[in-house]
């Protein structure tokens, strides 16, 4: 697309006119400022590419002389903030629930109030010469098992001081812990602000998490898959014995009831889901190969039946 056309300016437009045109398009179409407008997003993309080309007088002159074309300026695929912005675990999202949000009786009034104070500015009360301290936000990476089972950690502040944080059992990614009085100091007789610590859960090499459910992939051998048997399986609270049924397949999911996360303040306990994955021996020896050759003679089991024409 012609960059002048993308910005809606003439070829003789001044740099200021180009910037003005670009600004107007950004305001009207930037996907983060106008979420949900697909046509606007396309317009924004072409305008950005055009502006990248025309903002520098030298590249603009080279384009005008035909030395470069608009194609070279195509911007790479980018992720807009809006693809993260309304995810439930977006730490910047307004209206998030705090971990101490327990009173559901006033749900609808709380619902409208929840957004205030989330960035810390709603908390300031000014009474003459006294003012409450500002809330201070932190984000903290928490080891997977500490988030699942509860634990204690600390945030090291730029001045070297440390802020102790208790991790409640079963905390979810993106949840915020409020540490009362650990924000900025007040002026005069106001209240100190709170520290608002939003939790990011670090990945685990074995487990992943889906709410209170723990998931894992369990490698099993060929003979375990065929014959079944008992194997040791790790859970977040230690190893347990799991019975593999005879004739198991990769992708089959077994449930370890009650071995998931037991969040604080709730009776129910999640499960652990174990997905089986058959792993062949590192080297197929002659004996195994010979056995398989014999075994498949006269059998016509085809798991791909109906897939191919």
């Amino acid at each position: 697309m012609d960059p002048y056309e993308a910005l809606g300016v003439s070829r003789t437009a001044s740099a200021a006119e180009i910037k003005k045109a670009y600004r107007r398009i950004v305001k009207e179409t930037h996907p983060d400022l106008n979420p949900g407008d697909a046509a606007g997003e396309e317009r924004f993309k072409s305008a950005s590419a055009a502006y990248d080309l025309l903002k520098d007088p030298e590249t603009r002159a080279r384009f005008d002389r035909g030395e470069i074309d608009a194609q070279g300026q195509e911007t790479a695929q980018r992720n807009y903030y809006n693809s993260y912005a309304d995810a439930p675990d977006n730490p910047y999202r307004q209206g998030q629930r705090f971990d101490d949000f327990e009173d559901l009786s006033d749900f609808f009034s709380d619902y409208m109030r929840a957004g205030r104070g989330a960035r810390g500015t709603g908390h300031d009360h000014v009474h003459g010469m006294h003012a409450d301290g500002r809330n201070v936000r932190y984000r903290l990476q928490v080891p997977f098992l500490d988030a699942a089972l509860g634990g204690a950690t600390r945030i090291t502040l730029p001045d070297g001081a440390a802020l102790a944080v208790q991790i409640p059992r079963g905390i979810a990614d993106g949840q915020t812990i409020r540490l009362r009085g650990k924000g900025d100091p007040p002026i005069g007789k106001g209240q100190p602000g709170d520290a608002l610590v939003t939790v990011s859960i670090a990945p685990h090499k074995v487990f992943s998490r889906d709410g209170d459910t723990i998931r894992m992939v369990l490698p099993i051998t060929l003979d375990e898959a065929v014959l079944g048997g008992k194997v040791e399986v790790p859970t977040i609270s230690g190893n347990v014995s799991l019975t593999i049924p005879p004739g198991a397949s990769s992708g089959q999911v077994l449930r370890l009831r009650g071995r998931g996360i037991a969040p604080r303040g709730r009776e129910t306990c999640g499960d652990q889901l174990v997905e089986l994955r058959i792993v062949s021996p590192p080297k197929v020896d002659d004996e195994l190969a010979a056995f398989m050759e014999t075994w498949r003679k006269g059998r016509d089991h085809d798991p791909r039946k109906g897939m191919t024409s």
Partner: protein
Amino acid sequence: MTETFTRQQVIADVSGLDPVRLVEFIEAEIIVPVHVPEQPEEVAFRQVDVARLRLACELCDCFEIRDETLAMVMGLVDQLHGARAELRAVVKAIETLPPDTQRDVVVALDQARKG
């Protein structure tokens, strides 16, 4: 989601971002980097932070706004996205209700709109 970036990586990755600007953004709480207890002297950034830094830099460069004004605009953007997500959650919840109840909600909503 879980991929993290260092301070140097985000500065290299986001056009218009320099070390001074990054510090300003962090001080204004436009960006809140992740503390990793095992590395107390470093902070980490996630993909959401990179996307957010890119938006913040675009707003800075395009509209020449800084500091407090930028923090306010970003706060409004967050409120917009938060409100949209809440609204979507309400619609999703209503869709799970029986058809008669859904109709009641639509009527009640219509009345509430008229004040």
